[in-house]
């Protein structure tokens, strides 16, 4: 379980996260939604210890994330940020192999190789595993990075806007994969996502943020609500139920 207690964060006196407390259950997908600058990415970066918090406590399975060894944490929680940042010429397989770094420090064992194969197969990258990342389409590159996270084999997976720059087909493909990771492998996934319909259709819980504070958190069906969304986005959003899914119409 991921627990946040009274977490604060400010950049140059400008508060970006104010008094956030939050419990995230195991085996669920939790989406963080909210307008630009709400603090979603900051929050996820703090949970994955990429940036430090100013005040409060963040624990994962009862362990304080800052007190635990880097290497131990890297086996427990992984984060994937925007993936177009990598500018090295690496093959898919080399990238996925890095996922095993916390376990093997670069000297891959047989178990590591198996895990890498599994991850590559899971993301259906076998045929192109020796291609360089810069030769791939956006969707393939995203899948390669997710394969790396699968190889890292952490209980908790954080993704910061995983659908950025992806078309509908690839977006759905990625979200279905994430759903499967939760259902089949029992992972716990935290997402920062902009498209509230993707959040509505694929997540178990939603945390809605605005100006660094939690506006509403709870089960997806409770957060996808006209009044709540009005509060978050200052927009009148019509909600239609189609095949037991709540779809927001905001155009």
């Amino acid at each position, binding site marked *: 379980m991921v627990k946040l207690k009274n977490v604060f964060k400010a950049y140059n006196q400008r508060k970006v996260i104010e008094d956030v407390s939050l419990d995230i259950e195991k085996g669920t997908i939790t989406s963080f939604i909210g307008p630009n600058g709400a603090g979603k990415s900051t929050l996820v970066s703090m949970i994955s210890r990429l940036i430090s918090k100013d005040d409060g406590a963040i624990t994962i399975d009862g362990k304080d994330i800052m007190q635990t060894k880097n290497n131990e*944490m890297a086996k427990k929680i992984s984060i994937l940020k925007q993936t177009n940042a990598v500018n090295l010429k690496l093959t898919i397989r080399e990238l996925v192999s890095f996922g095993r770094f916390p376990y093997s420090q670069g000297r891959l064992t047989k178990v590591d190789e198996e895990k890498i194969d599994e991850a590559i197969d899971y993301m259906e990258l076998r045929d192109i595993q020796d291609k360089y990342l810069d*030769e791939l389409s956006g969707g393939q590159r995203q899948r390669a990075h997710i394969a790396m996270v699968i190889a890292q084999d952490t209980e908790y997976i954080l993704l910061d806007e995983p659908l950025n720059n992806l078309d509908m087909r690839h977006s759905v493909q990625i979200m279905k994969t994430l759903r499967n990771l939760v259902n089949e492998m029992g992972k716990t996934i935290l997402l920062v996502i902009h498209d509230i319909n993707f959040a509505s259709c694929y997540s178990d819980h939603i945390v809605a943020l605005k100006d660094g504070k939690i506006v509403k958190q709870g089960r997806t069906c409770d957060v996808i609500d006209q009044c709540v969304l009005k509060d978050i986005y200052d927009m009148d959003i019509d909600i239609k139920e189609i095949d037991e899914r709540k779809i927001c119409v905001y155009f």
Partner: protein
Amino acid sequence: MKIWHLVTLLILFSFTSVFLGVTDLSPKHIFNLSETQQQVLLTSRLPRLISILVAGASMSIVGLIMQQLSRNRFVSPTTAGTMDAARLGILVSLMLFTAASPLLQMTISFVFALLGTLIFMKILEKVKFKDAIFIPLIGLMFGNIISSISTFIAYQNDLVQNMSSWMQGDFSMIMSGTYELMLVSIPILILAYIFANKFTIAGMGEDFAKNLGLNYRQVVNIGLVISALVTASVVLTVGVIPFLGLIIPNIVAIYQGDHLKRTLLHTALLGAVFVLFCDIIGRIVIYPYEIPISLTVGVIGSAVFIFLLLRRRKYGL
């Protein structure tokens, strides 16, 4: 290019290098050396060969490490002020301790090289406009500023002539007794190989490295220390060899990718082969005189560099 291609070239050029020179020495003499020949071989030819191999391999690898850590393909000891800072260090050591031992000179030069590189990295962090070409240009300017400080101090202290010996890389002065210091590069390069995976991960960015539980700062610092140490030892013994750390890693990246585990050996071999080749050319062109290595490497290297710049889109650099 396969590893054995490089090894073959390396052996071929090494033989050429050993048997090339004013004193007559050819392979048929090898088991029947006269005293002069033996002396030439042991005090001049072999030390020269070894220093060429070490300088070529180590400067190329330093370039590779610097490129990964700065996440820019055109950063190298030449384009980050490292070489100029190392030279300033030597000058300072000459002024402070007139009879400084080579080891002390190297230590001071190393400290300066490290400081210079650190300052450049700090500038990199502050620069908003991260264009691949713009960054090395800043580095060149930074290097020239350091260089002009050196020249100014040298003029004031009548040390200009001493300075110029480190300005130009030159293997013709290499003899046993003067090059051994350079051998410190070898264990450092082994260290680089051990850290190869970590350098590549650090090259993927700080967030990426932290996610995998890597101590990013520590790895970057180790990389910079390695770079400064190797640069200082080469500048002190051979002098400045431009472009090497810039072009060799990029050529290797074209056919071998960027994973350090896969590229380190290629880079070392290609660097050594390239310098050997340039040295042989320099010794042949105006035989029996010779052209300093910095000139031959500079001419050939800058041509290759321009070619790489123009074609980099095609090669995915």
